[in-house]
């Protein structure tokens, strides 16, 4: 897999003008991080929640970059990173597999068609 998806927590939602940082502002700020200036974004930065559902001053963003040798993600995960003037926490995105439950026997891991 050539790209890595990351999750960034504690990102300020608004600037001093009380306007929510949009996709362009997020991309510009994320590109200022170490090693991301010329990186290819498989998924540009976006807020994890819909903006209208963000009630706090800080929230989480996610993005995916092309990182075949994992140097970018290793640098970001080990170092101190800041976005919009605040230190943030970065972690790898973990895909959770869809929960499959049998509608016949209610067991997990298979659907009804394969239930005995």
């Amino acid at each position, binding site marked *: 897999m050539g790209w890595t998806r990351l999750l960034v927590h504690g990102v*300020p939602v608004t*600037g*001093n003008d009380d306007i929510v940082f949009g996709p362009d502002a997020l991309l510009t700020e994320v590109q200022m991080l*170490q090693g991301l200036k010329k990186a290819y974004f498989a998924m540009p930065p976006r807020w994890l929640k819909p903006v209208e559902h963000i009630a706090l*001053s800080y929230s989480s963003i996610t993005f995916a970059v092309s990182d075949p040798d994992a140097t970018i993600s*290793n*640098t970001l995960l*080990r*170092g*101190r990173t*800041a976005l*919009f*003037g*605040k*230190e943030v926490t970065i972690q790898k995105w973990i895909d959770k597999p869809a929960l499959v439950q049998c509608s016949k026997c209610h067991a997990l891991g298979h659907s009804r068609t394969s239930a005995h």
Partner: protein
Amino acid sequence: MAGPSDPTAPNKVSGPAIATGMNDPSHRIEQEFTTVKRCGRKKKGATREDLNASGPSQGPQLNLTPASYASAAATVVNAQQGPTPLRTTHTLPPLTEVTVIRHGGHIDNQIELNIRARAADAIVQEVRLNMAKAVSRPIPLRAGRWSVNARSKGNFVYSFNGHIPFDIISLYEHILLSLFLGSG
């Protein structure tokens, strides 16, 4: 149930087996440890004899005598050691931190409360904006934080990317201190 005096009974407690004064080492080891098959993996409590007998990957055991040790040492004295494997050292990006010492803050308490009520990231964003207005390529201000908490003496720490000499940072002193209204 076998008592500690029965030499044939298995016993997990090492004390009584030693106290019986048995001189046969294999017998003693058998009584000190419970032998458990671990599929060849080394586990805590496994004896050296067990590992040598069950470990297929280990070579034959060499029993060194003073004469054989001397000959072995003589053969390896001129042997060249292989190149050391390259260690991947991961260096973190350098940072420069500058603290604004505020000596208790502004004289006016209300103004001081307003200053301290501001979020650190809001201060940094405004300072970055002011620096960008002043010069085309400002120094890379990345973050800022109140030194301890909101009830501290009000010191503020600016964090810059890379090694930035203090004399260069001091060129931006008026911008860095402008939000503290002369109290830094």
